[in-house]
């Protein structure tokens, strides 16, 4: 019965499928790529997709498929790490606000809301400007961008469940705030947290693409889909596949995590 519901959950199946595929590409690239990602074949510059080069070559004659595979490593790394940062700090801030209440709650939530004033990747751009571009700083910047979403859920859960008997009982038994958060409150907000994690994952992929396109994100030699797109832009007229394929892969990854998030939400919603 449970399995049937899972199979019927189309967003989940499609999203999960896309991600599994991309994950497989990434995992394979750790051991094997058809060509070296930086291996140039000067005779085959901007070659269209063909038997030898499935997705064609770029302006240096490098195999686009191999480079996409390697770029998947960066994409997954950035997604996972930035979500991990956003999740852990968001939980801490949200739980603190919810637990403390009063002026501290007010202040923290004001700061969290003020983030809305820095739309899109502006906040990440600010941080990267100050700390400099590169893989590590991009991860931190995108992680910071995700904190508010998680903080709000954690705080909401805290406020919602604070008054429940089982939480009060735990408090009365002398359980510390950390114990209460982890054992009593987190399990109750786990579903929105998982959904948000999935959506923030795709948000991070999109933001990284934008940042790297602007030259503010991942720097060479680290591979990046966003930078590949900016490298492809000048050749949009004579090698459109370069732009199309690279963007389609980014879209597929974002789509995958968005659908996965929606699917998980459906799953939890239908349960209740």
């Amino acid at each position, binding site marked *: 019965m449970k399995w049937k519901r899972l199979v019927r959950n189309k967003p989940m199946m499609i999203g999960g499928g896309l991600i599994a595929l991309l994950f497989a590409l990434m995992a394979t690239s750790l051991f094997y790529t058809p060509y070296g990602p930086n291996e140039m074949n000067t005779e085959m510059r901007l070659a269209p997709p063909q038997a030898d080069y499935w997705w064609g070559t770029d302006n240096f004659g490098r195999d686009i498929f191999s480079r996409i595979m390697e770029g998947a490593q960066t994409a997954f790394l950035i997604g996972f790490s930035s979500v991990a940062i956003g999740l852990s700090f968001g939980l801490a801030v949200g739980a603190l606000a919810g637990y403390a209440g009063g002026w501290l709650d007010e202040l923290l939530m*004001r*700061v969290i*809301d*003020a983030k*809305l*004033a*820095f*739309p*899109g*990747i*502006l906040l990440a*751009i*600010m*941080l990267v*400007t*100050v*700390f400099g571009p590169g893989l590590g700083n991009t991860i931190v910047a995108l992680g910071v961008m995700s904190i508010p979403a998680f903080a709000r859920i954690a705080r909401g859960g805290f406020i919602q469940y604070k008054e429940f008997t089982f939480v009060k009982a735990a408090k009365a038994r002398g359980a510390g705030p950390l114990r209460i958060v982890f054992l009593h409150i987190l399990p109750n907000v786990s579903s929105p947290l998982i959904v948000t994690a999935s959506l923030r994952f*795709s948000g991070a992929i*999109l933001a990284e*693409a*934008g940042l790297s*396109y*602007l030259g*503010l994100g991942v720097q060479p030699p680290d591979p990046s889909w966003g930078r590949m*797109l900016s490298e492809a*832009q000048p050749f*949009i*007229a004579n090698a*459109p596949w370069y*732009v*199309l394929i*690279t*963007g389609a892969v*980014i*879209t*597929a990854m*974002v*789509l995958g995590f*968005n*659908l996965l998030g929606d699917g998980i939400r459906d799953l939890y919603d239908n349960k209740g």
Partner: protein
Amino acid sequence: MRFYIRKLAALGSTVLLVSVITFLVFQVLPGDPAEIVLGVDADPHQLAELRKTMGLDRPAAERYWSWVKDAAAGDLGQSLRYHRPVADIVAERLPVTASLAILSLGLTLLIGVPLGVYIARRDGKLPALLLSAFTQLGLAVPSFWLAFILILVFSVTFKWFPTYGYAPWSENPAKALQSLFLPSLALAVPGIAVVIRYLRNTLLDQFRMDYVRTARSKGLRERIVLYRHILRNSLVPVLTIVGLLIADTLGGSIVVENVFALPGLGNLLITSIGTRDLPLLQTMVLYIAVIVVCINFIVDMLYRVIDPRIRLKR
């Protein structure tokens, strides 16, 4: 009246908070802002000189206070690179970004609202499937990649629109519109997806409401029930989305302006990162943030106009 005073006070405090965050990020986080401007291995003499011009010898709190005081008086400081008042430079660029945002929001609503209504009215299997495919794609596509595709289709293949460049409205309105159309469309697509999805869900919820049954029982024609009763009730939730959309559009324009080489704020922002023009950057970020805060404030006020129930609540 008391309500408006409280709302204005909240607006003021948010603006203040935003300015503190901006200042912290650009002036305190880096340790030595002068080093950001000149690079880590800069000449110590030059560094000392710059620290003086930027007033870095004073404590941070004092610097913040004078920045806010000057900004309130209209003095937003000097650009390090252009040696001109920041306010003048921003004023030159703002119209481009503003036109882009307005045009893209217009497209979003013009396309998104009728489609949302259409889909909600004939909620069949195929339209619903197409809709969810479109909205999911619209939300997943990086807007600058979409911009590439639009360039590829409309500029490279059909040659209907220029690929790059911009003509000011005052010089050539037709050309200005032409140069802004593709970027606006690229920016609008995610918004369209959001509006369709949200409006459809809201409308479907509203269709089931008791007051709709009443309106039908009054013998009103279906069209009037939809436009006079249902649509207006759906406006309030949709308005929330519009507020967020404007902010998203401003954020997205940073990247899209660079794709189309439009001389707007986003373009200036990236250029000044390259030239490490810290005062200009700091002010520009504050500018964008304050605009977003003000827009949210206006949306909040609009609720009250539309929904009498909120009007009464304090």
